[in-house]
């Protein structure tokens, strides 16, 4: 199988659509029922002041079915994944995981995502890593590499095609 850009999948069909519906249903049914909108998650949210992310609103909106709005909004991409909301929620809920689920659904349903993020996927599919070893500059502006620093070469997957193939398969499977 060649490298498929998951992020450019056209309108989801069939199995893919079922999978999305299944996740959406679980999301709607499972999570925000116990959320009593205390706002503790938002009070400590690292993306609240700067980027106006309000995790308690994400919880309320996904429960009330405004999922499309969330999927189309940049706000789900502003979470810095500090995990403080999950840590501190008095109801043991995890807004960060709801946000991750929304991002996963956005990607699977073909929404445009930042190229910086899709590039990491391309790179992992092609080489196993999010990027290749870089030439970096030191304090004196001298360029150095792993080699010039005497570091051993980067270990790599023996058969990258096999890894690619299994990742493509895993991406279409639901967890659980």
């Amino acid at each position, binding site marked *: 199988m060649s490298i498929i850009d*998951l992020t450019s999948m056209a309108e989801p069909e069939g199995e893919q659509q079922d999978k999305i519906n299944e996740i959406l249903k679980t999301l709607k049914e499972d999570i925000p029922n116990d959320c009593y909108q205390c706002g503790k998650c938002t009070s400590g949210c*690292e*993306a609240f002041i*700067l*980027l106006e992310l309000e995790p308690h609103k994400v919880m309320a909106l996904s429960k009330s079915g405004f999922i499309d709005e969330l999927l189309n909004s940049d706000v789900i*991409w*502003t*979470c*810095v*994944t*500090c*995990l*403080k909301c*999950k*840590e501190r929620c008095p109801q043991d809920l*995890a807004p960060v995981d709801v946000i*991750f*689920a929304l*991002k*996963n659904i956005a*990607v*699977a349903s073909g929404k445009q*995502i*930042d190229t*910086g*993020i899709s590039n*990491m*996927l391309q790179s*992992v599919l092609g080489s*196993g*890593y*999010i*990027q290749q*070893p*870089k030439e*970096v500059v*030191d*304090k*004196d502006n001298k360029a*150095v590499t*792993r080699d010039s*620093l005497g*570091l*051993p070469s*980067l*270990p*790599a*997957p*023996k*058969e990258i095609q*096999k*890894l690619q193939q*299994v*990742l493509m*398969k*895993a*991406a279409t*499977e639901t*967890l*659980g």
Partner: protein
Amino acid sequence: MDKIGLYLGCLIPTEQYAYEMALREVLPDLGIELVDVEGVACCGAPLRHINLSLTMYLSARNMAIFEKEGLDILAPCPYCHQALSEAKHVMENNPALKAKINSNLETEGLTYKGTIKHYHVLDLLHDVIGIDNIKEHVEEPLDANIAAHYGCHLIRPNDIPRPDDSENPQKLETLLKTIGAKSDYYKEKLDCCGAHIMVNESESALTKTGQKLQAVEEQGFDALTTLCPWGHRMFDAKQEDAAKVVGGSIDVPVLYYLQLLGIAMGKDQNTLGLTLNLSPTDKLSFIEEEI
């Protein structure tokens, strides 16, 4: 423990070379033999934004490779460490999912059983090597007040095993005291570095970086120390960019804890990757001028 498999993940071996140099230089002197293992790849954490199944598969895959070699894992990146911890936890509690992942692993000739442990530098130093042992290796105690930065993924979430407490971690401060330094409390200690939105919201990311550095500077610390390649990249390599975004100048030396430990152990400073730190480390008295 004497042998441990080294799992560097993506960021350390592709650009955060100072962390790798320092750990290869320092840990063997403390009785830890690091073993490089072939065939490993990304831990999957950066792909979690795209698809959680990819994260789970990649984490399980790496653990399966080390398990095959009969080695416990040292994962010096908190982001990797957390992904491995989560995959392990999920598979322990969900045999059906474990079976599903294992059937995919078979394609690559691998199986995950769950028989090995993994460590970060923090618990390896503090809990395995031990404070007393480290103390015996200190030749030149560091006279400085150094702010501690743990990294969000190292201490959270607490529903899976993490190397230190989620709200009041202290192991890094203890390690700093062990090498003669002081490490005062500062209220921004658990603030996030911003790294995770650097790709798509760089200005906000740099604002977070700059604000934390300013807090460290204003409270009179001599330096900031890190245990995470993502945070280190923000505070060290991106310090100038962060200063521009928040306005004003920032002048905070940023060093990996293992670099500080190496200095205190009297190591040749050339071997600790100190020329790769782009923040103003040379203003510290214990950094040699010409290295």
